[in-house]
């Protein structure tokens, strides 16, 4: 049984069919990629799987359980973590607390602990903090722990997104354009980080990316989405050489 199975998912925004008959299977530890021109529906697919939108049709099975209709926080707590393409961070929350926040569903001290500052609460908060520091270390931004996100550059914020998603203890990690806005040096670092977290947590990773070099190097298989439909699926070599992909999408990029 695959870890994640998306079956025939279709989604409409009013009259616009953003995703049509979409299928995906992910095995534990697998890295797969999703490419496609802007507006193809890639982010929408992430939002459908993570419960932010409810698919108009189709099924999404995680560990064999249908998760369609569950709330995003429930889906996240089950082990589907994600980052956001457009950096959805919290303006008035510092970097460390971003990561700690993602432990919300695992907190057991409850309201009693929160109100009365019990020993259990301080012990648990200390544990969460240690874990958060570890994750910040892992993505290389520990020294920004007490900074507000409004003060930090783009490349750092992408890593905050990453550390925060990891703190939810995902079994599948969805990365929505994790290198958007990064310079080539940062891009190489991000690739390294992704490899490292993949190893350390044995994650399945599903990533949306625009930079061909990046997807080609990291992913075992790649889907190409155009106007909400997968037009080609295969290994990086197959995708690179697929005439439909070249015509619909890669053509422009390869010329560059």
């Amino acid at each position, binding site marked *: 049984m695959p870890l994640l199975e998306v079956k025939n998912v279709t989604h409409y925004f009013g009259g616009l069919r953003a995703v049509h008959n979409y299928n995906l299977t992910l095995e534990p530890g697998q890295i797969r990629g999703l490419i496609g021109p802007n507006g193809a529906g890639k982010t929408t697919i992430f939002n459908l799987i993570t419960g932010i939108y409810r698919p108009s049709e189709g099924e999404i099975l995680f560990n064999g359980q249908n998760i369609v209709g569950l709330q995003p926080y429930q889906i*996240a707590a089950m082990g589907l973590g994600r980052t956001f393409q457009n950096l959805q961070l919290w303006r008035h929350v510092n970097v460390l607390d971003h990561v700690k926040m993602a432990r919300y*569903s695992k907190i057991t001290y409850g309201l009693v602990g929160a109100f009365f500052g019990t020993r259990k609460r301080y012990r648990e908060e200390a544990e969460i903090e240690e874990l958060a520091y570890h994750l910040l270390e892992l993505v290389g931004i520990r020294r920004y722990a007490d900074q507000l996100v409004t003060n930090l550059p783009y490349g750092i914020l992408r890593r905050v997104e990453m550390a925060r998603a990891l703190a939810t203890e995902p079994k599948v990690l969805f990365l929505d354009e994790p290198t958007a806005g990064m310079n080539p040096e940062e891009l190489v670092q991000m690739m390294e980080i992704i490899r490292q977290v993949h190893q350390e947590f044995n994650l399945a990773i599903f990533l949306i990316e625009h930079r061909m070099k990046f997807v080609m190097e990291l992913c075992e298989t790649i889907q190409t989405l155009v106007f909400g439909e997968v037009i080609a699926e295969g290994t990086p070599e197959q995708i690179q050489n697929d005439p439909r992909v070249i015509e619909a999408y890669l053509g422009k990029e390869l010329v560059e």
Partner: protein
Amino acid sequence: MAVAVQDLTPEKSALRRLWERVQGPFLHVPMLSWLVGALVAVLIELSVGNNLARLIGLPKAPVLFGVSLILKEPVLVPAAIVYIVLVYLAPVALVARGTAGWANRTVAKLLDTIPAWVVILIHLLLLYAVLHFWAEVNTYRLLVLRLTMIAIVLTVSLNVVNGYMGEFSCSHPGFMALGAYGASVFSLLFFVDDRIFGAPILPPALGPFLFPLGLIAGGLLASVGALFVAIPSFRTRGDYLAIISLAFTFIIKSVIENLEVVGGPRGLGGQPDWATLPVVFAWTVLAVWIINNFVRSTLGRALNAVRDDETAASAMTVNTRRTKMTAFLFAAFWAGIGGGLLAHVLKYVNPGSFGLQALAEVLAMVYFGGLNSVVGSMVGAVGFNLLSEALRPLEIFKWIIIPVLLILVMIFRPTGLIAFREFDVLKIIRPKHTAEGDTDHALTGS
């Protein structure tokens, strides 16, 4: 480089330099010394205040630092200033400086030997003593002090919703009304022989001890009321809360007006005098402590996540709806406690006290003091109440000056005076050995 930067803003740096000159000798003064200094000052006032006042030409010891006095009789300005300097500023400054070394050592040793909460408790007892003796001078002070502390409870709790959670709630007066009437009915029904509820059910001697139960009952009643606002408001995203909560306040008010059993529009009187200074002080400390604990926990910080980006919060496992509901009911509970205390301080409530005016005041205190900040709300509540009392002699002009001040704050500090600050009591009371330990450090930005 640094010199060049300073030269660009000569006025500001001159002001700053002056402030630093004043501050300089006091940078190493710990909170303990300030409290001891304040205690000495209020004891001086209690023993010789009136005599001293007459000696320098004041009718009696000025009630609220002389502000209302000089507004009524401006010729007394010099005398009032002399009084303030002699009774307050000089003793506080001298004692605070004089005891700083000793206090720093003592606090450091105490923090090493006994649990931190005991050290905090010692500070609180000192603070209580200061307030107690200050209020001893006359009963008006006692009233203002208790009303101000209740305002702290109301403001800090409303900040949970309007600041930390970033929604706009107008239902605090409604919750206060539920708490006030709930606690009043509890007191009158069980412990008082009164016109409406007849003979007491329980021995009145038990009353003061069971009073906390009455307050809690009132608080819970407010929380139940909050459920009726929260369920429709937090079902979907959108700004429904402001409208629904405003409607709630009006509905509660008119329901009470039509409830003859609690006196209708005439109100309900005869509450026993149980909301004494120590009782109100204890409840205020409890409220601030619990609310501050909550907003500093990860469960409480989830409010900020929900406010700043609800989708992201939800994708990070935060149960956003539960978070909002909990915080809203929690805030309502404390508004109810505040209302219950208020009813027993005034020993009378009527529905008219829980309308638009009450709403405007508590909103003003929250936005004046600073959003997302427990310490800001305390400053807002104290500042607003003292100002409002001190400016009383100006009568109608008071209601021009206060709104103008509020508008100025909104223009120059849109989130309020002390917004987005963390309130860490341990940092406030810790010894200050180094010169850089000024109060700004004690209130670290979040």
